[in-house]
């Protein structure tokens, strides 16, 4: 029996009005004869409108149901819960391309829903580690601080750690507009690439900005939009829909998929809200103890598969609460992802764009994606030299703050100047796109100017 059939052809209608209690978004339903863990349910309100729900726990004939969406207007006597006999699934078809959906996969662009080719469980299945292809194909983002020093490769998951008020959206937009792999635009028609964009709890002005970016892409995209005013629980669902679609497009349709999820902090807060409503034991800062496993179930869906074309590359945006990188959200994210791009408030205030602090930034999969055959033979040497000299320049800034520049030796002054120039000339690039060749040439020139070898 296909999943589609499960939604439509039941022998008997499997529905109950035997509510025991309603606590916020949680319903306890009694005398249920047959329920499945994580089963999708429809909740029919007294006024006739419907909301989706999911089975959270089953104890004998009592079932705990999470309402997805607003639970206002439910009552004890006239509410009906309809069991669908299947877990939450995502509809899949090439028809998903260039469409915009809400957090429950409802079309937001005014067009009718496409006809699904098939349905897949939204949580996906873990990829067998031996089936994974090692990611090593260079993606040129056009940003020197990423391409030169923290190189991104296909199949990688590389989050952007931002702070409130920093231009993370402009950086994401710049990557979407400029990213190329093997000389072709990542976002472009006919290039085999697709952008899957998942907005979680975004404010309207941010959404409007991304909307424009997507429209300007002129390439294939799929968008899942959950705005700040939309139901919180949909925030847990939207990234799973996005990733199910991404896996389908990548591993069945052979496309290179770049998934942008913004903002993961809103996702985690939604998870915390739901977990508290379920009266689960809170962990650090009130987030549930399974936050790591839950985040991993999203992030780990990035990757490549042996002997199959296509890839899922993941660029989540995480806004660090209180600019604190040790906060559970960036902390657990960093433990799962293959590196991180860290933005700095200080660089932003000095007018540097993108304001990327390269010292705490890291790309774990860089080593195999650079050098001969990928970027350029001297890439590794240049990156190491830039990194080392910039780090020592930054160290000296602390000394400068204590003793003053005048009392420092000439070689120390030179390193201070180097760090400054590195930020102004390499990290800073404004709106311009730089190819990897240009990035490396500029870097070499800078090193030479200061008499440093690569």
């Amino acid at each position, binding site marked *: 029996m296909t999943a589609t059939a499960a939604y439509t052809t039941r022998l008997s209608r499997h529905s109950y009005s035997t509510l025991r209690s309603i606590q916020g978004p949680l319903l306890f339903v009694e005398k249920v004869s047959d329920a499945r863990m994580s089963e999708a349910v429809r909740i029919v309100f007294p006024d006739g409108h419907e909301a989706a729900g999911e089975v959270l726990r089953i*104890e004998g004939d009592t079932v705990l149901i999470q309402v997805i969406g607003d639970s206002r207007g439910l009552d004890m006597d006239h509410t009906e819960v309809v069991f669908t006999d299947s877990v939450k699934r995502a509809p899949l078809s090439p028809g998903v391309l260039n469409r915009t959906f809400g957090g429950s996969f409802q079309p937001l662009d005014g067009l009718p829903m496409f006809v699904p080719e098939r349905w897949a469980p939204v*949580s996906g299945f873990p990829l*067998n580690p031996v089936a994974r292809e090692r990611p090593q194909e260079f993606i040129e983002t056009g940003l020197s601080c990423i391409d030169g020093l923290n190189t991104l490769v296909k199949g990688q998951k590389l989050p952007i750690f931002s702070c409130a008020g920093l231009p993370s959206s402009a950086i994401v937009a710049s990557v979407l507009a400029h990213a190329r792999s093997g000389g072709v635009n990542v976002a472009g028609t006919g290039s085999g690439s697709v952008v899957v964009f998942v907005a979680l709890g975004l404010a309207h002005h941010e959404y409007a900005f991304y909307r424009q970016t997507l429209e300007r892409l002129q390439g294939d995209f799929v968008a899942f939009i959950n705005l700040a005013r939309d139901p919180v629980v949909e925030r847990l669902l939207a990234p799973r829909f996005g990733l199910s679609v991404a896996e389908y497009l990548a591993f069945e349709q052979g496309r290179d998929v770049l998934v942008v999820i913004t903002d993961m902090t809103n996702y985690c807060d939604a998870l915390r809200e739901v977990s508290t409503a379920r009266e689960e034991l809170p962990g650090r800062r009130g987030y549930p103890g399974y936050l790591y496993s839950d985040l991993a179930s999203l992030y780990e869906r990035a990757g490549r598969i042996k002997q199959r074309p296509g890839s899922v590359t993941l660029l989540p945006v995480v806004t660090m609460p209180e600019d604190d990188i040790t906060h559970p959200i960036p902390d657990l994210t960093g433990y799962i992802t293959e590196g991180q791009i860290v933005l700095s408030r200080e660089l932003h205030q000095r007018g540097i764009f993108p304001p990327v602090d390269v010292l705490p930034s890291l790309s774990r999969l860089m080593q195999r994606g650079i050098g001969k055959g990928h970027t350029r033979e001297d890439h590794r040497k240049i990156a190491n030299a830039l990194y*080392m000299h910039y780090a020592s320049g930054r160290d000296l800034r602390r000394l400068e703050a204590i003793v003053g520049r005048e009392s420092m030796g000439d070689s120390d002054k030179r390193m201070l100047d180097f760090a400054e120039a590195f930020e102004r000339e390499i990290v800073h690039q404004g709106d311009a796109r730089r190819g990897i060749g240009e990035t490396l040439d500029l870097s070499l020139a800078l090193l030479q100017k200061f008499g440093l070898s690569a």
Partner: protein
Amino acid sequence: MSGRIIGISGPTVSVDLAGLKLYERVVVGEAGLMGEVVRLERGRAVVQVYENTRGLAIGEPVVGTGTQLTARLGPGLLRQMFDGLQRPLAAMHQSQGPFLLPGGTGAGTTAAMKLRFTPTKSRGDAIRVGESVGYVDEGAFRHPILAVDCEGTIDEIKDGEIGLEEAVAALTDGRRVFACHDWPVRLPRPYRRKLSRFEPLTTGQRCIDFLFPLARGGSAIFPGGFGTGKTLLEQSIAKFAEVDIVVYVGCGERGNEMAEMLDDFTVLSDPWSKRPLMERTIVVVNTSNMPVAAREASIYTAITMAEYYRDLGYNVLLLADSLSRWAEALREISAALEEMPGEEGYPTYLGSRMAEFFARAGVVETLDGRIGSLTVLLSISPPGGDFSEPVTQACLRNTGAFFMLDTSLAHRRHFPAINWFQSFSLYEADVVAQLDQQVAAEWGALRQRTRALLQREESLREVAEIVGTEGLQEADRLLMRTTARIRQTFLAQNAYTEDAFSTPAQTYQKIRQLLDEHQAASERLERGESPAHDAEVHPS
């Protein structure tokens, strides 16, 4: 014996099956998910399911197996990759495609394997429990076949080709000795006695081998925040360590990194035996998106296989990355069981479970009279890089060595980012005494000098923070130049170059040269000459 599901909550399932034993393995639901009994009440048992319970329905059947969670031990484990429940991943890839579907077993892949058995006992010989009756060849290793649970007089013994599941010998009382056997993973394997001897275990990492040496049969932890190079260090040690067998557990970590490692391991060779690296390696991998309960089981599955090779008389190294993910899995399961939480939500038995795990390391005289060792090396991922958290603290009470990975060193791209002031090794005295004899008589003396120099540098650094390096004495500036070289060329090792591995002799040569040059320059300075500026180094 079968019953039905009566309740489902996260990874735990209540069943109405009577007659189950605690920790008995059960098969849950129509999909055939694997589970383990964790709590018994009258008329009700709570089962921890090792796979995702999504889609499981009330009323689905549950069957008891009568056995505990076991690992199958015998020839053919080497070169394999298993998940946390010892299911062969390559076979599952072939049978069900790239994604892991619930209920898959991948079983039956070894049944067809044929091996050549050479008996060392003959008809009429008496055997004791744990004694070997013969051996098969597994790659480069001679793999003894042990009589695990029976003793008596041999009535019949095979010679020649055997199947992996077949008996190799029969005793007069009718009991048989098999090439393979199952062992409960949570039960430490027996040995005759534990020895307290500490022979050096060379890891190939200069910072560890020289400053914080590791001993065979010992244990070590390396905690570090993200980006401090835990995984890279762990994989480097797995490649280069001077041991016979390596069991590597990827516990709740990244899938892409495992792909990278498997890729590397199939092309690299063991620097000691020059044979392909995979021939001495068993990989157990339960990535962060694979089911949590299987993650909890994975380190037990791995250490049981490691103990088995120890019992065959080999030096075994178990590497787990990371123990924190195991502890978190324990916490998730404990929360699902609604147990009273201890510190930071971890169950109060976290410490004792860990102590039991660490206690499985050691050098032993096996039941068969061989000497085998099991060394345990664990990485820890403390939240926020804060070492005061319960997992790191519980480990510190049990571990023999502590390599603290330092975020500030990592930000400077100094790898391995082992902090040389905070780290320690309790094996130091024993191992150094042996290295003095094996490598060079001044090994211990050079260590003292190096540590003194690094100590001195640290205090000078504080002065330099105030007066600037230019304001220091000439002799102190010389010292800082030397320690910068020690840090950059000796303590740091690039895992992507030839330098990734260093033998004890190379380590000795290198530090000896650095210290000699320092000595010479100091003497020149004392004579009033200018100490030659050697290669330009940037104090960083």
